[in-house]
C-alpha cells in the first residue's frame, strides 16, 4: 500500500521501503533529499579541483593514467548525481549556478589545499575511504534512483582506494624525503578527516536518518573509519597526529574532539581554498557557456 501521509511514509521507509521518482513524497522529505544529493554532486565536482593539478605533475606515466582515471570517475559520479537531482525537479544548470554562487554546499575536505605528492596518496587512500563508508550506507537509501547510482559509484571508488594505497606504499618504501611527504600530508589532513562524517547527532534527532536517506549515524561512520584505517596507518610506521587517539576495551575509539567550529566555517564557504576554487569553476563555466549553448540548447 503506497504511503499517502507523512507518518505512513516514515513508517514505510523505516521498514525498508523505497520510492521512485514519480511516487508521492512528503515535502520535507523531498526538500531534504534534493539538498543532500545536490551536496554530494557538488562535492564530487569540487573534489576534482584539488586533484587535477597533480595529473599534470604525476611523476610516472602509470601514475598519470591512474590519477586521470580517478578524477574522470569523479566527474562521472557528479554527472550521475546531478541527473538524479534533475529528475527530482532541479535542472543541472540551476544546481551549478547555486554551487558557484555559494548558495549550496560541498564537503569540508574539498576546501583545503593540496601541497605535495604526499597529499595525492593520502587523499586517494584516506579521504576516499572516509567517503566510501558513507557511500556504502547510501546503498540502502529510501530513494531508489539514488541507491541505484550508489552501486556504480561504490564500485568505481574501490579502484581509487587501491591507487591511493599504492601511491602511499611507494612513498613509504622510498627515500626519507618521500616518507616525509606522506607523514606531513597526514598531519595536515587528519583534522579535516575527523570532521568529515559530521558532528555526532543521535539517530533519533537526525532527520536524514529518520527519512532513511542516510542509514548510518555520523559517529558510527567515524568509528568505522578509525577501526578500518588507524591500524593500516600505524602498520606503515606512520603516526596519527592525535595523542588521545586510542581504542577502548569495549571497542570504541576515543579521540580529541574535532573542531566543529572549523567545520561549520569551512562548509559555509570560509575554507582556505573555497573562494579560489569556486572562482575557477565560475570562470571556466563562463568561458565555455557558448559551447553549451551551441550543443545542448536545441533538441535533436
Amino acid at each position, binding site marked *: 500500500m503506497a504511503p499517502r501521509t507523512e507518518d505512513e511514509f516514515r513508517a514505510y521507509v523505516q521498514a525498508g521501503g523505497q520510492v521512485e521518482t514519480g511516487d508521492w513524497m512528503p515535502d520535507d522529505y523531498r526538500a531534504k533529499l534534493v539538498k543532500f544529493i545536490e551536496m554530494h554532486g557538488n562535492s564530487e565536482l569540487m573534489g576534482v579541483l584539488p586533484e587535477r593539478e597533480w595529473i599534470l605533475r604525476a611523476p610516472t*606515466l602509470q601514475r598519470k593514467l591512474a590519477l586521470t582515471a580517478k578524477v574522470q570517475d569523479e566527474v562521472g559520479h557528479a554527472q550521475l548525481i546531478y541527473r538524479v537531482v534533475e529528475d527530482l525537479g532541479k535542472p543541472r544548470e540551476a544546481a551549478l549556478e547555486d554551487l558557484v554562487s555559494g548558495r549550496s554546499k560541498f564537503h569540508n575536505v574539498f576546501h583545503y589545499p593540496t601541497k605535495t605528492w604526499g597529499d595525492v596518496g593520502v587523499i586517494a587512500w584516506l579521504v576516499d575511504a572516509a567517503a566510501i563508508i558513507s557511500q556504502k550506507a547510501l546503498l540502502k537509501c529510501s530513494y531508489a534512483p539514488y541507491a541505484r547510482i550508489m552501486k556504480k559509484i561504490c564500485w568505481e571508488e574501490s579502484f581509487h582506494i587501491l591507487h591511493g594505497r599504492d601511491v602511499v606504499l611507494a612513498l613509504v618504501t622510498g627515500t626519507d624525503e618521500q616518507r616525509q611527504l606522506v607523514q606531513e600530508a597526514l598531519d595536515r589532513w587528519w583534522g579535516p578527516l575527523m570532521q568529515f562524517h559530521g558532528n555526532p547527532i543521535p539517530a533519533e534527532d537526525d532527520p536524514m536518518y529518520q527519512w532513511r536517506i542516510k542509514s548510518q549515524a555520523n559517529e558510527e561512520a567515524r568509528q568505522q573509519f578509525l577501526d578500518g584505517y588507524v591500524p593500516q596507518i600505524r602498520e606503515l610506521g606512520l603516526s596519527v597526529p592525535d595523542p588521545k587517539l586510542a581504542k577502548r576495551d569495549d571497542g570504541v575509539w576515543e579521540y580529541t574532539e574535532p573542531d566543529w567550529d572549523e567545520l561549520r566555517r569551512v562548509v559555509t564557504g570560509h575554507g582556505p581554498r573555497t573562494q579560489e576554487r569556486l572562482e575557477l*569553476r565560475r570562470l571556466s563555466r563562463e568561458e565555455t557557456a557558448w559551447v553549451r549553448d551551441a*550543443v545542448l540548447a536545441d533538441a535533436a
Partner: protein
Amino acid sequence: MNAQLLLELADDELVLGWRNSEWTGIAPFLEEDVAFSSIAQTEIGHARAWYELAARESGADADALAFDREPGEYRCAPLCELRLVSDWARTIARHYLYETADAIRIAELARSDDPDVAGLAAKIQREEAYHVMHAQMWHDRLRGEERYEAALDELWPYALAVVEGERRNELAAAVGREPAEPVERGEHTDDLAALWEEMTTVRRSVPGAAW
C-alpha cells in the same frame, strides 16, 4: 625504424595528452569531460608504448624518456605544445586536425617493415578510431561557428608538421584545405617551457626515486 622518429610519435602523444588532460574537471559539460579525459588517457598510453619501442635498443625506460630529458630534447610538433585551455574552439580544432593527421600517419606505420612498429600501429589504430569519431562529431557540430573556423585557419599550418612529404597532401585533401607554409618541428614554442616545468616538478624533487 629509427629511434628519433619513434620519439617524435611518442612526444606528440605525451605532450598532446598532457594538454588534453588540462581539461579534465573543467570541460564544457560533464558528459564531454568524461569522454575527453579518456582521449587524454589513451594518448598517454600510446606515448608509453612508443617510448617503450624507442627504448628497446637503449634499455632506458618509458618514464625516463618521457620525463628525464631537457626541454630542448623533445621532438614534438609545435601543434601539440600550444596551451589552448580554456578555449574549446581551438582545442577541438587541434583535436580534429591532429586526429586526421595521426590517422594518416598510423595507417602508413601499420605497413612498416619493422614488425614491432607495424604491430603497435595496428593496435593503436583500433583505439584511434574512437578519437577520429569523436573529433568528427565535434567538427560537424561546430562547423560554421566563426570562432571554430578561425581556430582551424590558425592551427592548420601547425597541423601540417605532424606528418611528412606526401602525407601532407593527403592531410590537406582529408580536411578540405589548401597546403600552406607549415610550422615545422625543430623549434619549440614558448609554451613548452612552462609545460615541462610543471610536468617534471615532482619527479625532479627526488631524482632517481621510484614513485
